[in-house]
């Protein structure tokens, strides 16, 4: 215990004496919470639309008009022909083309309508698919409006009502904030311990420790505890910042948010230590850690849905702790889920924590 005490004292002295780290630990989460919740949105708006009107009827003008006045669209112009519109699309001056065939109004009034065609630039898959969905809706409602004005029954559009739970206002920020907290923890608790230990290796200071009777578990604990504290400080700062800036509070229990973070921090920093134990240079450690971290971030469901991955990759995500942590954080933060609802995820996270913790103690060798 006494040994652990002096080692911890040393770690904290070094941490506070570093000209860079303490500032980083405070300002990095604030900056991230300030900037990135605004970035991470997949909501589609301002879709630039070009209308090719070959019908030139009151209906086709109505459709153009509806598009022009919709908040989702940025009406470009009415093009003469489809080829010219397509050229604009290739030059990235428009995102979608609505092409109304000649004689469209007439065919509708006869009861056997021709088809409007909608072409969208799908290089941005979300924009393409959502944009064309919006366009489908808006052309449909324009036609209905037109028919009603003419007093013609027979094309009522049936509907399905939609109830949005947990995030009624559909604010994307709220969905991103828990994921940003996870990214922060992955970066801070993954990179810092790995760099710290390899730094001691490169400088030779770890050898001076290895030649003393310090137990390896005690030394590892002294390395890990400061990063648990740092991780919790980072979480607290980001929760507080997101509350101040966006008024977002966990709809589930605060304690459970911290509990999950605690387990994840242990797991992540232990993983950093394992990587450091296998690396002899900083650059090697940082490359290995970068590898792990990018997989955790990009495949853990933080930024893109796991369900969208190919099936083999979805199975692969079962070995990523970030996957479980992501589910827990979002469900607790946004849906008010409890530890009971998420018992499987907590169990998986705890198991990973145990495994990595053990690995950290085993892979550190005082003797070669």
């Amino acid at each position, binding site marked *: 215990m006494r040994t652990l005490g002096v080692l911890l004292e040393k770690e904290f002295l070094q941490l506070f004496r570093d000209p*860079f780290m303490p500032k980083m630990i405070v300002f990095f989460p604030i900056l991230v919470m300030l*900037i990135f919740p605004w970035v991470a949105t997949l909501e589609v708006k301002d879709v630039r639309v070009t209308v090719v009107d070959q019908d030139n009827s009151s209906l086709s003008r109505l459709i153009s008009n509806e598009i022009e006045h919709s908040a989702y669209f940025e009406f470009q112009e009415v093009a003469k022909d489809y080829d010219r519109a397509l050229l604009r699309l290739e030059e990235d001056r428009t995102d979608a083309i609505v092409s109304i065939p000649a004689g469209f109004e007439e065919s509708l009034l006869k009861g056997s309508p021709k088809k409007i065609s909608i072409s969208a630039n*799908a290089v*941005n898959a979300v924009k393409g698919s959502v944009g064309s969905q919006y366009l489908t809706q808006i052309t*449909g409602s324009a036609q209905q409006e037109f028919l009603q004005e003419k007093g013609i029954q027979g094309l009522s559009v049936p509907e399905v009502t939609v109830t949005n739970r947990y995030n009624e206002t559909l604010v994307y920020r*709220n969905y991103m904030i828990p994921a940003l907290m996870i990214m922060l923890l992955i970066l801070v608790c993954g990179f810092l311990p790995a760099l710290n230990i390899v730094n001691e290796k490169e400088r030779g200071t770890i050898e001076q420790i290895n030649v003393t009777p310090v137990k390896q578990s005690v030394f590892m604990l002294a390395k890990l505890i400061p990063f648990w504290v740092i991780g919790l400080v980072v979480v607290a700062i980001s929760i507080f910042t997101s509350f101040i800036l966006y008024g977002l509070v966990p709809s589930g229990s605060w304690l459970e948010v911290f509990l999950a973070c605690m387990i994840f921090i242990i797991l992540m920093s232990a993983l950093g230590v394992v990587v450091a134990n296998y690396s002899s240079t900083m650059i090697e450690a940082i490359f290995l850690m970068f590898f792990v971290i990018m997989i955790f971030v990009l495949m853990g469901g933080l930024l893109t849905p796991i369900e969208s991955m190919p099936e083999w990759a979805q199975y692969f995500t079962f070995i990523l702790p970030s996957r479980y942590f992501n589910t827990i954080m979002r469900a607790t933060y946004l849906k008010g889920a409890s530890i009971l609802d998420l018992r499987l995820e907590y169990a998986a996270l705890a198991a990973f924590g145990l495994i990595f913790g053990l690995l950290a103690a085993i892979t550190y060798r005082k003797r070669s």
Partner: protein
Amino acid sequence: MKRKRGIFIAFVKKEFWHLLRDSRTLLVALLIPVVLMILFGFTINTELNNVRVGFVIPHPSESIRRMTEKFSGNPYFTSVGQIPPTRIDEILRRGVADAVIVFPEDFDRRLSAARQGLPAEPLAQLVMDASNPNTAIQGAAYLQGVILGDVAVSPEVRLLFNPQMKSAFYFVPGIMGMLFLIICAMLTSVAIVREKERGSMEVLLVSPVRPLVIIFAKMIPYFFLSCVNLATILLLSRYVLKVPLTAGIVSILGVSLLYIALSLAVGLFISTVTHRQVTALTISAMGLIMPSVMLSGMLFPIENLPRILQYLSCVIPARWFIDAMRKLMIEGLRFTLILDDFLILLGMTVALIALALLRFNDKID
């Protein structure tokens, strides 16, 4: 002049020797980008294609059975089966399903009314887990489309350039942009700061060799290393991920090589503002990951950002590279159409190298 060139070559040789001797680091630096490229190229996808749907069916009927079958046959949906109405909230909260379709008692009657074009009550109620608004918006649109598919007059929709919506195409330039920036920045910043830490940089700086020579000699081996990475990544993109690379290899290579130089310059600049390897790596890895993933247009389109962040994203080199590479690799535009991106990247490279050299020179005086 000749003597100077001799010194330069000697320095480059020394740096190459450094790099090659550390075979573990070399292996890691060559393998990791490739593995990540393949992994992310195949898996990253923002397209929604697996909405898990549960059904509340108070009064089963033939038409409801047919309707639910449509969902199990559709690749965009996974059915989680029928659920009791009391458990809707629990199912959504635990994340078992993303959406629940609640059919009304008199679904059959409402359906036939709709088919005859009569104004009808809602066909069904959709309860969405809107914690992810994107899934909620898109999923609701998809689900409505399927439920109403038979009864509505819908236009023909064409998605261009990538009609199968294979997102791999779209993300390959993004992944390249992120990987090159971070890896090159880490390699150069640490290589220079390591010499500072060990004190060998001072020895070099007091020698008659000009800082420019020392710095370029340091960067050349990493430039070659990155070229090897570029070659593997382009080959993989073409033959494994099947990215079309339509604009021709010359302009793709041109932009990529410039971008590699820029990324090395970013590392160089970082090395002039830090004195310790830990700090240099914290900045080049931790500091660059977030902006180059989030502000580069890799996953989140620049045009969706608020104005201020759009301006901010202009300083992220990856933004311009990704924009250019998407146009070249996927859309197959001519080089002249990405000239603005190219010039911005060039300007950034020159500016960063100039800044770094200024700082180096300052220190000698």
